[in-house]
């Protein structure tokens, strides 16, 4: 991992749809080298996948998301890892983290509607072994995701010429 790799990662994180040619121009690398480096970063799982930041509220499909916090009794030898692995297999779980504070694990869960989310939590998550307590927070509105704010900034006036 060198400066050029970091350049590639920053560029792709912002816009993964740029062509290797465009990236090559920005980084002063040959196109083939850009492709090789990106492939290596993919193989090393530094690049996990290429996804899209979507403002679902604007898409208007009515999906509901919630943040679920869990108190978990850790397992001898495994800590939280095994239960986290089990939870991560559910399609509904979009993100999962071990956190400090009152709760141990924090999940983001998405479902078609409120019923689906609550059914998932009460039928699949809460009854799992070692989970002692759950707290469900329905997301009412999302203002910023993955560094992208969902606000439209007004255009500001800029001089056309300025020496």
């Amino acid at each position, binding site marked *: 991992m060198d400066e050029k790799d970091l*350049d590639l990662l*920053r*560029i792709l994180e912002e816009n993964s749809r740029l062509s290797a040619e*465009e990236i090559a*121009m*920005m*980084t*002063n690398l040959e196109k083939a080298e850009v492709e090789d480096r990106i492939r290596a970063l993919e193989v090393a799982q530094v690049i996990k996948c290429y996804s899209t930041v979507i403002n679902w509220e604007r898409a208007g499909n009515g999906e509901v998301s919630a943040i679920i916090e869990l108190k978990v009794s850790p397992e001898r030898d495994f800590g939280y890892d095994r239960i986290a692995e089990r939870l991560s297999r559910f399609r509904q779980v979009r993100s999962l983290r071990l956190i400090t504070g009152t709760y141990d694990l924090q999940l983001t869960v998405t479902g078609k509607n409120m019923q689906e989310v609550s059914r998932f939590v009460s039928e699949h998550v809460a009854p799992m072994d070692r989970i002692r307590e759950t707290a469900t927070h329905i997301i009412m509105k999302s203002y910023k995701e993955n560094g992208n704010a969902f606000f439209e*900034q007004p255009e*500001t006036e*800029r*001089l*056309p*010429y*300025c*020496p």
Partner: protein
Amino acid sequence: MRNFTSVRAQEIPPSGIRKFFDLVLAMEDVISLGVGEPDFRTPWNICESSIYAIEQGVTSYTSNKGLQTLRDALSRYLAQHYNLNYSSDHEIIITSGVSEALDIAIRAIVDPGDEVLVAQPGYVSYGPCVTLAGGKPVPVRCVEKDHFKLNPDSLAEQITKKSKALIINFPNNPTGAVMTESDLKAVADLIIDHDLLLISDEVYAELTYETRHCAAATVGALRERTITLNGFSKAYAMTGWRIGYLCAPRELCDAALKIHQYVMLCAPVMGQVGAVEALRSAEEEKNSMVNEYRLRRNMFVAGLNRIGLPCHVPEGAFYAFPSVEKTGLSDVEFAERLLKEQRVAVVPGSVFGSGGEGHLRCAYAVSRKELNEALLRMEEFLNTL
């Protein structure tokens, strides 16, 4: 009625981009590479601290020199980043942008008849400020062959008994040239041998892409005869805040301070509060903007060379300075036709003085998308020639 305008005001040349301004106002869908300012907004932490200060009633004059907290923070910052040592009590003045710092620096040192050497191509204010102070600006030409660095031989040719000072600006607007420590050493000897003063405008110091900026006052024995100018506009995207600063040995600083207190009193306090926050917490934001400029530069300069406008790689600031000589058009003709025919605004190099002719200044402080579109339009234009 008499003509009330002073001879000095009459002597200053009108702005070389006035007519472009008028043209562009009547047009739509123009991509402007003509603006010498960041396209980013000021980082929010800076804005937020200034808004909070206003809410708390921080709206008064400050000390003439500027807020003590800002001068203390700057003094530490300059020492850490550039190995520049200036006392926050006696050697730093906070000004209303580098523009004011430049004016008071020149007025503090120029007597009628003094010659001031001005490295060109250079920012458009240096010559007129010297004229307004009663001095005579003397251009020193920097050429493409030297990558637009200041060549000691060219400097030596222009030095006379009347020469009092030299004004330089590296990283340079409009060429993007930088001067390394060894480049500066070659010039330092001449400055010292001829007992000149150096005014070094280092407002683009944070925007270097290959090497770290070398502050002129750290080279050889230059410190005692150097006035360093810098500001927050370019590095922190704070052009409208108007916060610059002047650093110089006490005697020079005291002279500049007298002028500053009569003409400006102090720099705006909200801007000064923002500047404190910039030094305290905006390093990350600054670095990510610099990184983005570097990527754009690589892309844009490669693009210019590809479409047939030869361009050296600018190592600093956010300007590319391609040559249009091969097209057979003058820089002014090229810029005017490019604007009218393809709606891309660039500044003709001759606006920046001797050595700028035959070149265009293209500011790449615009989004990559706009840069790509500008390149397409420029290529289209070249195809019609």
